[in-house]
């Protein structure tokens, strides 16, 4: 582990972490000291920075779950928020490994680079990874092209998640959702109660006072827990930069084969994507602000190849990150509806 030796408030190492996609996976076990590691060791106790407070809050939440539930699980969706969640879990229980497994609900339509990244992280960090696929959906040939985003997401994500939670009997599940992402998420508690059929009742949420969390549930009920509730997109990137957290290379700009479809730029990630007669594949320099199923996730034109450039680009952006997500556009209030059905 990095030590504090040599750290001072002047030490501010934001190494150019990424030259190209392949370099992103830095060795997680020996992070370079970023600014968070450097603490003032003399004089008045420094009040914590914004990011230190967020980090402490998230760690507190994870420990609370580990102490209060018998079968917790951390949802791992491979995106940047999941990467931060994973990093925080490694911190919260150090020197032990996180005392719960990680679950990836695989829709079978994730970017190939995401799956490769997932398997590499699990091998490097040695966490317990469970992968669940809705096999009935696979058998019925459910896919985003023929069935549309609504049906695909419902069957391969929402239903698959419910299947996995029931199969393993998890009583608490961490997710990486943030309140700044979407309006119904802005309303959700950090500890969000779900009834025995995994449904959220937005009109009847438990009061959540101070940092005292009500973790009581009856048989069959469960809690979804959101340790990143109070983080913003900027906080996430700043933290990734500061802590040198590995992320999927798709976040960085690179020449990639894409097609324009339905107002979005879609990456042709494998041969399952059939082209329409008027479509043609172009090599363009693009990257992703958010990652989901490749046919449903729009790329953005960008030259940002480093974390610093991503942050700079984000700060001058005029559209929200979920704009690249087809599933949020289906109808107003669609996120709330999905959540009431058991979606994360």
């Amino acid at each position: 582990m990095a030590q504090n030796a040599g750290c001072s408030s002047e030490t501010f190492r934001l190494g150019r972490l990424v030259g190209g996609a392949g370099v992103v996976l830095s060795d997680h076990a020996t992070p370079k000291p970023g600014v968070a590691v450097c603490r003032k060791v003399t004089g008045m106790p420094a009040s914590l920075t914004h990011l230190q407070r967020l980090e402490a809050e998230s760690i507190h939440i994870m420990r609370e779950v580990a102490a209060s539930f018998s079968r917790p699980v951390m949802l791992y969706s491979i995106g940047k928020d999941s990467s931060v969640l994973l990093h925080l879990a490694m911190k919260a229980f150090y020197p032990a490994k996180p005392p719960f497994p990680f679950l990836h609900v695989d829709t079978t339509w994730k970017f190939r680079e995401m799956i490769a990244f997932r398997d590499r992280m699990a091998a490097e960090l040695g966490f317990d990874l469970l992968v669940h696929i809705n096999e009935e959906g696979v058998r019925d040939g459910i896919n985003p092209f023929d069935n549309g985003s609504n049906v695909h997401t419902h069957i391969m994500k929402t239903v698959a998640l419910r299947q996995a939670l029931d199969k393993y009997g998890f009583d608490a599940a961490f997710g990486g959702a943030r309140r700044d992402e979407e309006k119904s998420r802005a309303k959700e508690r950090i500890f969000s109660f779900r009834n025995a059929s995994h449904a959220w009742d937005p009109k009847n949420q438990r009061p959540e006072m101070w940092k005292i969390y009500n973790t009581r549930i009856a048989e069959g009920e469960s809690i979804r827990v959101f340790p990143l509730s109070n983080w913003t997109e900027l906080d996430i990137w700043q933290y990734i930069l500061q802590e040198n957290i590995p992320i999927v290379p798709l976040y960085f700009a690179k020449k990639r084969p894409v097609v324009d479809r339905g107002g979005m730029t879609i990456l042709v990630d494998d041969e399952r994507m059939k082209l329409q007669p008027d479509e043609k594949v172009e090599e363009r320099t693009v990257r992703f602000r958010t990652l989901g199923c490749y046919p449903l996730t729009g790329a953005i034109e960008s030259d940002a190849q480093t974390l610093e450039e991503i942050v700079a680009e984000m700060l001058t952006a005029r559209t929200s990150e979920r704009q690249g997500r087809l599933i949020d556009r289906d109808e107003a209030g669609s996120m709330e509806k999905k959540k009431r059905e058991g979606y994360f």
Partner: protein
Amino acid sequence: MLKLDEPVLSDAEAADIRSYLEAQENKTLLRFLTCGSVDDGKSTLIGRLLYDTKLIFEDQLAALEQDSRKHGTAGDDIDFALLVDGLEAERQQGITIDVAYRFFATPKRKFIVADTPGHEQYTRNMATGASTADLAVVLVDARQGILDQTRRHSVIASLLGIRHIVLAVNKIDLVDFDAEVFEGIAADYKAFVKDLGFASVLPIPMSARHGDNVTRASENTPWYSGPSLIEHLETVDIESQPAAQPFRFPVQYVNRPNLDFRGFAGTIASGEIAAGDEVVVAKSGKKTRVKRIVTYNGDIPRASEGEAVTLVLEDEIEVSRGNMLVAPDARPHVADQFAANVVWFGEHPLMPGRMYLLRTETDQANATVSHLKHRVNITNFAQEAAKSLDLNEVGVCNFSLQAPIAMDPFEDNRTTGSFILIDRVTNATVGAGMILHPLRRAANIHWQALDVTKASRAELKHQKPAVLWFTGLSGSGKSTIANLLEKKLHAAGRHTYILDGDNVRHGLNRDLGFTEEDRVENIRRVAEVARLMADAGLVVLVSFISPFRAERRMARDLMAEGEFVEVFVDTPFEECARRDPKGLYARALKGEIKNFTGVDSPYERPERADIHLATSGREPEDLADEVENWLRERGYC
């Protein structure tokens, strides 16, 4: 000041992102909430803040314009409230139901704002937002002035430890920017809050809809010389109680990956700690030293309030979750009785005598309100006598816990002085508490250790003590079956006693009526008597309607493991009313008896009774046999 057309980041800043981020890093964080009555413009104000600080993206703005036409209440203008009212029900009804959290930043500070609902029925959601805030923006409609909700929210903000208030006199445009109106409301409010202990109260004339005095001084209010809302939020000093606080570390999680490592994980509630410092375990008083402060980034020499760390101690001493590591020279109270302010959130009223689960940040214990001292009238602070606290009411209560907890008065420490109350049947969060002071009574009455024990008394009688708790509607056959069973047990040489609902009400409980409060107390006393009798080695048969799950649960918890046997005498209401052995149903149905179980007072059926007697078509003799067999099979007799 920010202007609308300027990008968040200039090109020069974007080029030197490193220094930009460094500047971000040094920003402080202010958490505040907006509160006040319905339609005073809370959501509109937040929408305005987000818009003016350019936190609204183009796609969100497009969606907002579309929504404004569909649901909006601002004519052709953008309805900013729709930005924060994110739930379908809220948008349809045009009201805020639950608290929404929003995030924005200015060049000086980062902000987390909780937009809280104004309707009285959603006060608990307002309290949720207030519990983590440092400052409250209380909105008032300039045309309406101070309303009950304005007062209620101010009182709750004060109770929950908020020290800074901005009184936003909103919709000032609708009173023609009249200075006198503003001065009048400001004076009323200051008079009202003078005893609430706020460190600062700043009234600002404002129009959230049009942006007057929100991010910049308005030309329409030349008579107002104070700061705009944003200017004030950027500069208000919230460092109320800094480092001088004594060290408090509630142990959250014991980290023991292998035999060589035993760490205590938690978040420092106050003060600071360094490796080598002496600490005391709050509940046992045992002393030790901190050997290491472990983090993922390596051991650190010291840590302070707010940090989530893992402490390794010098000595192997007993510490578990719920206990606290504290400064040896300034220890918290450890007590099982204390007085506290309570805000009640439950649909069902708070009842003295009923048992709740009390939870602090990491500890929990069963708790009852031993005395409801008074209810606080939030409009004039009058202390009113009360037998219960209804939804959204505030009161001062004495609590009695089954096990002691470590605590500080809330005014000294917001973390170690707070708790929530949980309904033990529904698991709902029904109340929030702020500790005032421990009660000394607890310290002075100790248990007298006795040499002849329950076991020895029971052994002499050759039996296993038990409490058979018969519950069911009036006329269901409880007493009949209990009576037959006692005869059988007596004939078999068992030492028994029957506590019968009607009989006890002639003596021990003759001061009690049939209100819900009195019923709770009725059961509490009977359960305590049953416990004493079981302690004497008897098999006790309790025959009580005992309609509420919470009280049956309380009775169960008073007894030793396996000693309490719940017998549900399940006779349908129609059958009981038909039998009507005492003529009570006829009178209740005519309205001559109030609070009659099954008629105008509920009976909560047991969910998991130990013995469920479905009586229809069966003889009492047969039912008593069933209970006797059950007891014999399990070694009770």
